[in-house]
């Protein structure tokens, strides 16, 4: 699985899914014109990677400053794939970054944290 790098725009997040290294990152603002068109290929790539991957830790770091409800749905779909992979024995860590004064993003992270049963979820406060 090749690395997927997409530069961020004013309304779509920067994407760096470094599959060979097991490091996935998403950051910035997310309210795409068409969330399904933006996130669909990423979800498919992640699902294919998790299906075929060799053993090795996987880290998914999310540093979003705003995301709309369609993006939240897409994130949840990816998180469910990751939690399923963790249930199957993969070492998955999800890191949710938020600014110290950003209650909205912190609360969203706390909500998502409750949905993970197998993957490790870290809420990381940024100075």
């Amino acid at each position, binding site marked *: 699985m090749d690395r997927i790098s997409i530069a961020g725009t*004013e*309304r779509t997040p920067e994407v760096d899914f470094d599959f060979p290294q097991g490091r996935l990152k998403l950051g910035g603002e997310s*309210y795409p*014109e*068409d*969330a*399904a068109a933006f996130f669909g290929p990423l979800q498919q790539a992640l699902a294919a990677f998790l299906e075929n991957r060799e053993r090795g830790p996987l880290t998914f770091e999310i540093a979003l400053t*705003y995301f*709309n*409800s*369609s993006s*939240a*749905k*897409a994130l*949840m779909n990816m998180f*469910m794939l990751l939690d399923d992979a963790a249930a199957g024995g993969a070492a998955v860590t999800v890191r949710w970054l938020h600014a110290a*004064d*950003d*209650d*909205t993003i912190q609360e969203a992270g706390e*909500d998502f944290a*409750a*949905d993970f049963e197998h993957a490790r979820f870290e809420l990381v406060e940024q100075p």
Partner: protein
Amino acid sequence: MSPQDFISFHNASRQSGVIMSFSGDVSEKVLFSLGEVLRFRMTQGATDASIAKRVFSVFVEQAQNIIRYSADRVAGGSPDGSGVSAGMIVVGMEEGRFFVACGNEVPQAQVEPLRARLSRIAGMNQDELKAYYREKIRQPAEEGSLGGSIGLIEIARRASAPVEFDFRDLGAHRSFFCLKAYI
């Protein structure tokens, strides 16, 4: 309307606390530009950052609902393929609280399902909304839904009071729907 009528219209809006109002065809680009000036105005006005985020979030969900679900659509949409639909979006302040209101035409057949859904959401407290949101976000999108099916719940969660809504029959199997949320 005469120029004097337009001045009265403008003054009436201002006196009602309206900060921004738009009525007409809404596209994703319109949403982006209005959102940009809304954020800028809130930054300049030293609005509390958490409140500003909530207002922006409710604005985006409401504008995207118009684009996706208004029954009054421009055939073919915009050149880039995304939808263009008529509606209304108003942001303002009443008694120190921001509000975001939106309106658009809906097919008559959708009035009762939408009313039932919003009544349910409006009757929920924050804990119930959170539980309902978590339940819905894990489910596949509902039929006819283009987004996450959770936009209305998101609006209610960001609001500081139960969302207000109403309908007016336009005839020809259409109604005008309006939703107002205080932040």
